[in-house]
């Protein structure tokens, strides 16, 4: 049986774009949370962690309504940009970003919070601005955490399923990602095709995780030794 590799490529593309976007969004969010002493911080943290615990069907339902060109946001987008987010790759990217946000923010925030406060203070006493301090001192010293964030985001997006099932529309080449393809093939009793997809995803996910854990150990050793 000939296997269609398009869902795998699509998944890869989605994971890559999501990860890049989340680098740009997640790092500033993590940085702000890490140094915040505001009493609203726990609220912000709870909101960011929500995708971690909320059923994809709940999130999917709300996104379905939010993106619908019949109502509010979706209506505005359609009217002004002629942009329809449901059943589009852009919609998947946006929902993946929401869904994987905690996977980027958590490790980076934890990394920043674990840095001794004296590093930031020392940079300040040397006359350096917050921005310089962040990019030249703080960020380079949380490489393992940053790596974890990138990898977890990437791998978690590879595994996105429930959300795509609800708002993707199973369009080949656009929203038919690997996890959906597997579901479909299983339901259609094409176990062989499902086996191929599942095995590939399993191997990729495992390799990524193993690399992180092996590398983290190595990175950690570099710091200690």
């Amino acid at each position, binding site marked *: 049986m000939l296997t269609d590799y398009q869902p795998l490529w699509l998944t890869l593309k989605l994971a890559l774009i999501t990860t890049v976007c989340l680098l740009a969004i997640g790092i500033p969010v993590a940085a702000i949370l890490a140094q915040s002493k505001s009493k609203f911080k726990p609220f912000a943290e709870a909101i960011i962690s929500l995708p971690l615990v909320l059923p994809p069907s709940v999130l999917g339902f709300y996104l379905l309504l939010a993106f619908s060109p019949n109502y509010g946001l979706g209506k505005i987008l359609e009217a002004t940009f002629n942009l329809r987010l449901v059943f589009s790759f852009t919609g998947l990217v946006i929902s993946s970003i929401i869904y994987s946000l905690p996977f980027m923010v958590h490790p980076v925030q934890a990394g920043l919070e674990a840095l001794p406060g004296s590093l930031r*203070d*020392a940079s*300040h*006493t040397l*006359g350096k601005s917050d921005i310089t301090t962040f990019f030249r*001192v703080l960020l380079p*010293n949380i490489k393992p955490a940053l790596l974890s964030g990138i990898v977890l985001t990437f791998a978690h997006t590879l595994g996105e399923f429930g959300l795509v099932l609800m708002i993707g529309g199973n369009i080949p080449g656009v929203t038919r990602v690997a996890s959906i393809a597997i579901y479909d093939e299983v339901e259609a009793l094409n176990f062989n095709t499902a086996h191929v997809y599942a095995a590939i995803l399993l191997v990729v996910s495992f390799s990524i995780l193993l690399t992180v854990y092996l590398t983290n150990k190595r990175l950690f050793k570099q710091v*200690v030794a």
Partner: protein
Amino acid sequence: MIKISVRKKLHLAHGSSMLSVDAELPAQAFTALYGPSGAGKTTLLKIIAGLLQPEEGIIEVNGETWLNTHRKINMPIQKRSIGFVFQDFALFPNMTVRENLLYALPNRKQTDVIESLLTKVHLKNLANRKPDTLSSGQKQRVALIRALMRKPQLLLLDEPLSALDDAMRQHLQQELTSFYQEYGMNVLIVSHHLPEIIKLSNQVLQLEGGQLIKAGTPDMLFNLEQNPDQLQLIGEVLSVDEQQVKLWVEHSMISIPLSDNTALWKAGDKVTIACHTRDLRFKKLS
């Protein structure tokens, strides 16, 4: 000249208390900050650096106002001309020794300053090493010269020499003194090692429970000029018998024959012991 007048609430072990310090230090003073653990020494240093905010306070350094809570002046840390040596060194682990110094240098072209300072503290060979591969004495020296890169008006040192073996301690004391003289800056050092304070500083601030309880020159504070020809000790009578009195003095025992003077002594009595320096015999420890 440095003028400090700050009030800050401290959460001490026995409840909350107030850090309250009013002091004026002459220009180019080498000042020691002295006092028991938890007295507020680190807190005071951080307030001066701008790393902590007091509820109320004025800090003026060489005529420049760094902080004045009444006039709502609070100069950013970056603008204060300070060098801070942290208790944990705070070297940047991602940079080599030279990169740490380069980062601190305001004018990136004047790298000859770096080379000359590296040579002075015998670290030239280690310039390309990452901080984590250095011994603690080496780290301390890097932290010290990194703090000097900006040629600060005020150098703040938080127990920079504690928990070091004697040889290393003395080496760094010498370097510190020579930098102080060469750069003509103000130094504020936290230390609870009395001989070190006396050796290095010309001003002492003594803190206790957040309060400045004494301030002045080391001579004044520790009664050094009192009687330099006399050694004064305190001992305790251990036993008195027919022939002799046994005394416990500074962890060793001496025995002296009975005399009129000792007639009324009994075990447990405290005794002052004095000796003229001409009667002392000295020998250098190797």
